[in-house]
């Protein structure tokens, strides 16, 4: 899709804005520039896990006519996993600069570790069932449970317990607590990482489909 090609425009613009246009935050100083990469990575990972869950639901509903939705769910979950690992690494370095420690078991840090483990288990399950004809259905059920638990870990736990993390973009006051320049930069980075995710997701789906077609044609010969 042509819209996805906009990632090649938005991404460099986002990087330039993050370093040259957005001001440094008053308390955290230069470390605050991590916001424009850490938050979009975390957002995209949540989006990827949601799409993986929705694809799993559709796979179970449609049954045999699912058009490889289980593989699409796997592709989305693997991208989500990549992005959440990057978000965690970036967050850990930000934590060192802002709170003076790489890791301090903040509720959000703890919940992200549990989320990572949930998806590690999913990939183990996927690989363990390689020759099982019911792999798609079993892993889809697992992904639906993972999707249902994800908002709990990402949105609820960090709000229930006292956290060092500042108010999120989606907060009880319903306002984005950022200056105008920071807001614009963050929005452009959010859009660019979202486009990057969809570009990679569709590319992975195309590769999977090609691999499957090739296998089928080789089997027929």
């Amino acid at each position, binding site marked *: 899709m042509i819209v996805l090609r906009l990632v*090649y425009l938005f991404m460099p613009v986002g990087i330039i804005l993050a370093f040259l246009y957005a001001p440094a935050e008053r308390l955290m100083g230069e470390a605050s520039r991590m916001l424009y990469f850490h938050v979009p990575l975390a957002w995209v990972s949540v989006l990827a896990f949601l799409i993986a869950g929705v694809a799993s639901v559709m796979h179970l509903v449609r049954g045999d006519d699912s058009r490889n939705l289980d593989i699409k769910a796997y592709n989305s979950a693997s991208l989500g996993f990549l992005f959440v690992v990057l978000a965690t690494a970036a967050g850990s370095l930000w934590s060192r600069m802002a709170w*003076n420690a790489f890791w301090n078991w903040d509720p959000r840090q703890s919940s992200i570790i549990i989320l990572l483990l949930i998806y590690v288990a999913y990939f183990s399950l996927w690989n363990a069932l390689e020759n099982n004809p019911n792999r798609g259905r079993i892993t889809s059920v697992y992904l639906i449970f993972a999707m249902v638990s994800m908002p709990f870990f990402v949105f609820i736990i960090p709000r229930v317990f006292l956290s060092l993390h500042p108010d999120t973009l989606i907060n009880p006051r319903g306002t984005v607590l950022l200056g105008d320049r920071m807001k614009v930069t963050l929005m452009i980075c959010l859009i660019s990482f979202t486009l990057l995710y969809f570009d990679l997701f569709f590319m992975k789906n195309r590769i999977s489909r090609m691999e499957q077609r090739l296998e089928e044609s080789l089997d027929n010969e």
Partner: protein
Amino acid sequence: MKRTITAIALTALLISTFFWNTGTTDGLLYGNTGPAAPVVKEYGGRPENPASGALSEEVKLYAVTATVLAIWSVLGVYLFLLDRRIRRLENRIDNSIRGNE
């Protein structure tokens, strides 16, 4: 291949922004090289406190840039791996076509 080249180009762009910043930190942070400079120095020149282990603003900027560079390196490697997967597929298709002939 095109994607790999784009990833490398984006990384190069990122590295270049790093040099722009380190060269003229005071002005560029606020997009203003003139009157804003003293205000920025207030933040940019915050002294390091070795006792608390806090990092200076310059070190923080280096750290952010290095982290972003690392993120892009990982994404670049990921794109390279996808590109390799496509190349393998192309080779398999070519081989099967040659086999049929």
